[in-house]
């Protein structure tokens, strides 16, 4: 009992130290330039919200929030649909071809995106999709499929075959057995797939920098990057911009955080 108490104190102390950057971020966003210069570490006194209004308009966050939301949501739908279907085949088939395909998909986790970056740029350009939402959605679906297929396949392998077999004995096709019986059972891993891909796609910087720069379809990290470059010495404004840019995904995480940790556990066991 006593040892648990000591551990609790230690862990809380670690958490407080861990939160120092977050404290810095929020407190600077709430200070005017004079306060930041005088006492950079002290809490804001009094707090001001002027930085947030300034950052919102200067960083053009409205349009980029829309872009990020459209690209992230559409990519997630495509990833969950394509990934779960493919994984159902890969997890159940017992041929060499099936295993070969699985390994081929796993290769995509290891391959650095940079290797294909330039040929892909040409391809997307030839398709007329540079600087469009569709181009980015196609891109994220392809690039995140290996990880998605990996998570789904592991989970489906651990799932008893009997559910689908029973449905098939009753006359269901593979397609209905999957959509009506198997897919609903995948809910925990779908949660994990959803949040991990959402975090990656929402926060990705390199790709939109290369493929969307100057197109007017910039996502949040690219807008924030350009904005910070402009206001680099005005820390209050910069940090308010960072808070606003990070807020949507942090809120989504806080709403779904139970499923994140649970989903991880089931994904690993699978």
């Amino acid at each position, binding site marked *: 009992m006593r040892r648990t108490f000591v551990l609790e104190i230690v862990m809380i102390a670690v958490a407080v130290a861990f939160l120092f950057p977050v404290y810095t971020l929020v407190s600077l966003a709430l200070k005017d330039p004079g306060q930041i210069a005088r006492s950079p570490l002290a809490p804001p006194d009094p707090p001001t919200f002027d930085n947030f209004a300034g950052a919102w308009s200067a960083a053009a966050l409205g349009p980029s929030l829309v872009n990020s939301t459209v690209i992230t949501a559409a990519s997630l739908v495509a990833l969950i649909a*394509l990934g779960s279907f*493919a994984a159902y085949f890969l997890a159940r088939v017992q041929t060499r071809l099936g295993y070969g395909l699985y390994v081929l998909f796993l290769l995509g986790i290891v391959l650095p995106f940079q290797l294909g970056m*330039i040929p892909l740029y040409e391809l997307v350009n030839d398709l007329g999709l540079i600087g469009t939402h569709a181009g980015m959605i196609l891109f994220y679906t392809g690039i995140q499929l290996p990880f998605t297929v990996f998570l789904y396949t592991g989970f489906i392998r651990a799932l008893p075959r009997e559910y689908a077999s029973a449905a098939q004995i009753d006359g269901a096709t593979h397609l209905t057995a999957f959509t009506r019986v198997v897919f609903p059972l995948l809910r925990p891993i779908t949660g994990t797939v959803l949040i991990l891909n959402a975090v990656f796609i*929402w926060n990705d910087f390199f790709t939109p920098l290369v493929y969307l720069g100057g197109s007017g379809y910039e996502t949040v990290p690219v807008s924030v990057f350009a904005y910070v470059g402009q206001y680099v010495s005005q820390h209050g404004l910069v940090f308010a911009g960072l808070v606003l840019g990070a807020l949507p995904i942090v809120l989504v*995480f806080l709403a779904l955080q139970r499923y994140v940790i649970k989903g991880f556990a089931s994904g690993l066991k699978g």
Partner: protein
Amino acid sequence: MTPVTAGRARPAHVRRRRFSAASPSWLFAAPALAVYALIVLYPAVAGVVYAFTDWSGIGRDMSFVGLENFRTLLGDEQAMGSIGNTLLLTVAIVVVQNGVGLLLALGVHAKLRSRALLRVIFFAPVVVSPVMVAFLWKYIYNPDPSAGLNGLLGLEVDWLGDPSIALWSIAGMVVWQNAGYSMVIFLAGLEGVPRELHEAAMIDGAGTGQRFRYVTWPLLAPALTINLMLSTIGGLKLFDQVFAATNGGPGYATETLSTVLYKQAFVFGKFGYSTAVALVLALFVAAVSLVQVYYLRSREVAV
């Protein structure tokens, strides 16, 4: 991998004979395969081809130059330095991130009142964009003795401006952001350790240390494999944090393979050479992952 799967395999085989269509058709995988081939496989193969050309990125004018790009790489001090930086950075990140992640996981696995909240706090930085984390840490690392980390610790260190420590400062911010990711994966592993094994070991008189060494640690092997692989690949490919915090400086002190290949392509217009650097990066990642998978999988045990 486990006896359970081995036992399940045989009835499945029997069933397959009874129902001719027990495995779903490959058409289930076809759409995913098509997108994957278009977006990942084809560009990667084309990239390997470009690595042997002198393409400038403008028009389709290019000629094959054999190993020329790789010879240039060997004589390119900045690029060679970036290989060293990338490897050092990766080792530091892998060791510290997983060490911290494991300690955090052991801490929040215990029956603490605050454990739900602690888990959320430690994982939260994972969900924030690495570019934004880099901007935040650029301020925390500022040389002003009254602000940021210096102000907190009473130091006067130029964390990102001093070439001898800048690389480690970058590693620090990456560990802060990603330790929670390792923690969650270790936590998933810890939750899979059967309680009976701990109780049996306790009855046999094993102390906390011994139980960790002989019960928990071997059973954490799958979590360790995944953690080491993900952090190694992440470390080798590191771009966002360096680009936003130091852009490779001071001098070339924090240049990584990813920042070098970005600059070669988009600043200097040497697309062929840039792709050659990317190919070297790909070979590093592939070699390290293969070794890890074979070595680490071999020491995983079945429950």
